[in-house]
């Protein structure tokens, strides 16, 4: 059943280590994913054999770094099914991507107080940047199962807003949002759409052209890549019109003390020496993913999610949060009488790694009427055994406190 997952585990060195003296059961992949050996090796190779900076050197290691950087951009474009690599901007991660769009795309278009439509399930990264850019964030409500209210969405779009910003997959509920439909609705109202793909990129096959959005972004560290790198995809016509975000080397055309002209996109948005090793690691991660049968893996994940959902349902006092029909591998829950922090801590003592807290979704937690929750999240190396260990621990914890 999870034959693929089991065969993959060996390529993730961290999964073979001990945690608190027990074999590590890593169930926090929605926070950050572990890295396959291929990704680690790509970066080590860069730093030990080929290290140089990009663009400005004619010597061999700089030439190689430049070609690798360009190849990484091509790889990201392919991963997102983008029309061209020029539509891909390298950033630190999803958070920076959204800040870039808020600052360079939204801010020049709006008066302070203009509305950006978000959802009740958004990550702080898809709320705070719009607020910092001077907008008011207005949420599309969700149902108790964790699904977007599309009727309300239509109404709110009709009421007028400058932007729609919505996650493709919720990091707290697992909900897969109907982004194609949302984009179609927004288009009818002339509203540009940003899709936060941080949680979708590791689970789904992405096609930004089929989705019909204006902006799409994700973080490298959640798709088995390194920290400090991510990508923003934007329609070429938007990038062409947007002013630069940060200023510095490599994003300029001509600098004088009186004023400066800028390079064309995407370079216009990539000031300074970038995270070259990060792009190389991300390229390796996406190449590694590309070589897998992602459709089969998605099916396995659905089966694994169903299996885990069943197991957790049997834990006395446990309430699962988020039961959308379309859902990625995220299991968020509370246990009557036990604080999520204690759940995570006690599981940790047995080597089981899950997350407790608000998962950077305070407004969602307020909507759900809970202070915090516990969350176990799956990746393509997750197995039934992981979930059995989790359920076993939860039963023990439930007994400890009741």
């Amino acid at each position: 059943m999870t034959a693929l997952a089991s065969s993959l585990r060996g390529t993730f060195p961290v999964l073979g280590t001990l945690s608190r003296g027990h074999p590590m059961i890593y169930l926090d992949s929605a926070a950050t994913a572990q890295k396959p050996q291929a990704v680690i090796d790509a970066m080590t190779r860069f730093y030990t054999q080929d290290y140089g900076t990009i663009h400005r050197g004619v010597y061999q290691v700089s030439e190689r770094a430049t070609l690798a950087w360009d190849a990484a951009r091509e790889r990201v474009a392919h991963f997102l099914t983008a029309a061209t690599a020029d539509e891909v901007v390298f950033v630190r991660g999803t958070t920076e991507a959204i800040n870039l769009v808020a600052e360079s795309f939204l801010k020049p278009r709006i008066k302070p107080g203009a509305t950006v439509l978000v959802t009740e399930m958004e990550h702080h990264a898809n709320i705070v940047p719009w607020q910092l850019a001077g907008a008011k964030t207005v949420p599309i409500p969700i149902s108790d199962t964790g699904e977007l209210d599309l009727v309300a969405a239509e109404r709110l779009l009709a009421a007028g807003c400058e932007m729609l910003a919505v996650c493709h997959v919720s990091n707290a509920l697992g909900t897969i949002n109907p982004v194609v439909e949302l984009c179609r609705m927004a288009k009818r109202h002339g509203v540009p759409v940003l899709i936060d793909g941080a949680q979708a990129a590791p689970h789904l096959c992405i096609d930004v052209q089929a989705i019909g959005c204006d902006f799409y972004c994700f973080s490298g560290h959640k798709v088995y890549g390194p920290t400090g790198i991510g990508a923003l995809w934007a329609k070429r016509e938007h990038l062409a019109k947007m002013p630069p975000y940060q200023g510095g080397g490599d994003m300029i055309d001509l600098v004088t003390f009186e004023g400066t002209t800028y390079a064309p996109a995407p370079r216009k948005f990539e000031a300074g020496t970038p995270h070259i090793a990060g792009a190389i690691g991300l390229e390796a991660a996406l190449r590694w993913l590309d070589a897998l049968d992602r459709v089969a893996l998605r099916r396995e994940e659905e089966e694994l999610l169903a299996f885990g959902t069943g197991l957790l349902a049997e834990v006395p006092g446990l309430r699962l949060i988020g039961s959308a029909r379309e859902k990625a591998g995220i299991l968020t829950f509370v246990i009557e009488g036990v604080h999520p922090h204690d759940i995570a801590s006690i599981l940790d003592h047995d080597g089981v790694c899950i997350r407790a807290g608000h998962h950077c979704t305070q407004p969602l937690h307020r909507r759900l009427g809970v202070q915090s929750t516990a969350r176990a999240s799956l990746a393509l190396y997750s197995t039934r055994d992981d979930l059995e260990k989790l359920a076993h621990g939860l039963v023990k914890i439930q007994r400890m406190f009741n």
Partner: protein
Amino acid sequence: MATSDEMYQAVIIEHARSPRNYKPLVTPTHHCDGRNPLCGDEVSLDLTVDAEGRITDIGFQGQGCAISKASASMMTAAIKGKTVPEARELFERFHALVTGEPTDEKALGKLVAFKGVAAYPMRVKCATMGWHVMMEALDENREKRPNGSEQ
């Protein structure tokens, strides 16, 4: 090798389930609210300190994990009836205990149950939250009342 018993001792779970002095005071002389933005935990603390600088009553309320709740509960039990300097000293000892610094464990009495926290740096904040709020309550009011009872 770690076991859950190390940190979640029976006395801790018992206090978390039935916290002592879990109430607001009607006329506290000192008060402080604390919140840990990372985990959302909250503690609200009332103290009554008499003219001699003795903590005659104490009450807390809040949301939090078992460690923070039990720690606040056992703190209230431990410092009730103590003078302010004694409470401060106990804080120092407790802080040393949960951060793995050497201290006189006997002087801590039941509080020694929290020794296991030292192995989990991420949980030190939980175990000390009530204590920090207590220290702040005492500090804060000292400024407001320069002729008050604390030195």
